[in-house]
């Protein structure tokens, strides 16, 4: 099953490679990995999207917790959570296609950020499912370039991931 894991990581050099190294050394899947600073300058927040059997996920979480650089961790998939990812996508936009792409962008609540005679750059935000749906709707033939940020996530409600 697909899991979204949020990690508060000590903001120190090498911490990212400890996590990345763990995944490659133990042969765990990484679908996406994002990391950025938080409001607390001593911590970064990392979001890993991974998949595996329950036993594998249990091991991933235990092994992550074992890393001395990991301050706190939450398997968001175990709770009610929000997942978001941003996608920038460059598409061919000519003739009647221009209108059609514009309409699709509106449906997916996207924004057009750049316009030329023959192309648009569109920004769409959502979970993995929505982004893939948008890509499918545009059709492979029209797509020039895709840049996705990787997912980030946060639990709903008052309870929060804090050290």
């Amino acid at each position: 099953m697909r899991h979204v894991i949020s990690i508060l990581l000590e903001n120190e050099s090498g911490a990212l490679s400890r996590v990345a190294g763990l995944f490659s050394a133990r042969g765990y899947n990484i679908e996406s990995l994002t990391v950025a600073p938080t409001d607390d300058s001593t911590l970064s927040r990392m979001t890993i999207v991974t998949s595996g059997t329950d036993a594998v996920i249990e091991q991933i979480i235990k092994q992550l917790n074992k890393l001395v650089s990991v301050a706190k961790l939450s398997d968001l998939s175990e709770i009610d959570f929000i997942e978001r990812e941003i996608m920038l996508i460059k598409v061919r936009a000519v003739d009647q296609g221009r209108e059609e792409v514009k309409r699709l962008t509106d449906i997916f609540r996207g924004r057009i950020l750049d316009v030329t005679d023959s192309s648009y750059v569109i920004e769409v935000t959502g979970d993995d499912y929505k982004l893939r749906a948008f890509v499918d709707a545009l059709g492979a033939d029209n797509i020039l370039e895709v840049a996705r940020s990787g997912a980030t996530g946060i639990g709903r409600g008052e309870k929060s991931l804090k050290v």
Partner: protein
Amino acid sequence: MELSGGEVLMEALKEEGVEMVFGYPGGAVLHIYDALYQQNSVKHILVRHEQAATHAADGYARATGKPGVVLVTSGPGATNAVTGIATAFMDSVPMVVISGQVQSRFIGSDAFQEVDCVGITRPCVKHNFLVDSLENLASTIKQAFYVASTGRPGPVVIDIPKDFTTPGITVPFSYPKEVEMRSYSPPTQGHPGQIRKAVDIILSAKRPMVYSGGGVVLGNASEQLRTFVKSLGYPITQTLMGLGAYPASDKLNLGMLGMHGTYEANMAMHECDVLIAIGARFDDRVTGEVDSFCPHAKIVHVDIDPASISKNVAVDVPIVGNVSQVLEAMSEQISATEKRADPADLADWWAQIKGWASGNCMDYEASTTEIKPQSVVEALWRVTNGDAYITSDVGQHQMWAAQYYGFDKPNRWINSGGLGTMGFGLPAALGVQLAFPDEIVACVTGEASIQMCIQELSTCMQYGTPIKIINLNNRYMGMVRQWQEFSYEKRYSHSYMDALPDFVKLTESYGHVGMHIENPADVEGALKEAFALKDRLVFMNFVTDQTENVYPMIEAGKGHHEMRLNPARELA
């Protein structure tokens, strides 16, 4: 007190109670060596190769329970140390490795003797640090010792750029008393509810089995294990790493389990209905094929590392905690309750076990013409009253030492179980002997393994360590040859040791005593003679039966109940 980085390091080591450091100098640690020279609380042991520094510190740590400390230079010094760091990591040995690094402003410039030491060692350390300032040096050292020696122990590397140890550049020194690490909190107490659940299952068993591992030795829980097992009267087996935690001579002990374990231990594993795993990690050399592992058993698993639990084998009652505390708590609960396993069930179970044991799986064919390696280990046990520290290398000799030297005490059997590092034995023995100058220390080795760190004979001369080296010389990489005999139709591809040195002359050239023994009748006498030389290192070259195999054996893909037994047993 204003100190330079080199002096900070020396003071910190003193504060940590470090009595000796195993090391080798070089450019990036020259400042540190200068500080070392100007103090006399920390002794430095100059090895002949950085790999040996790590193995010696490792042997020291396994024998004493205190972290071993290593000091190496940048670049090749650090890379040479990696094998020993990985060895300590796999066996959870507390160790602090201090490596020099190029000056901080040169990092990343491919400077002379620069390697990314933190990067290279990352997968084989518990944690590592690249020191970022002279101001943070003392607190980093404090954290390193704390991480290395608490929880599930392991090696920690501290990489120190040369400019942070420059003489004359100083900081006010105060060594932190406490460590505060929000992202590291090793577990201590087992969960009381889990302990209650476990005791209930343990006391309801019909065919119980205790399986203990290296965690009991590392966790200093041998006494607690003995009390626990004796109060129950249950059979116990140990892993290669756990030997000695429970006395080999006790009647409840079925010996080692796993690939070269006893028939009775492995059969009891296969047939038990409750398995009590203590400080063991279900390694593949222990479980055999996991699909047929303990098929009838409910499993209780006590371990300090949550990640060890249900990693290879799913368990029913996990208890995360310090093994000695959990064993004590379980023993308390057992004495507080009337409930016991049904004595009739237990008697039946023991009768079944005695049946398996009656096959005497450890018997081997005696010979009057060739030295049987097993007989050398048995004689070694007699000559040392079973009370020596035994280190070993990797191969058949290691298994024979484990099988035939009955260890009654913990911390006496010192071998590279997890990584299986040839070359470990001699430097490890050096570390043990330096820790305990008055104890008997022997290294059981093979002619291939010993050559991987043979240069340490020189270190042994320098520090006068009277180690006894028992070389079971079969002129083969015996363990490799055995696998080739069983699985590759005797195609002995590159497992033959040709062009061997004259070990007696070689030893003598280092200034030690060499002995050559090829007659079975001479074995015991030679050992007595060697051990009588209390102040000398003696290298005993035993020319042994060339094609003897290690039995019993579970071959790849087989379960505990499918052991291959010594075909010579019936002949004997």
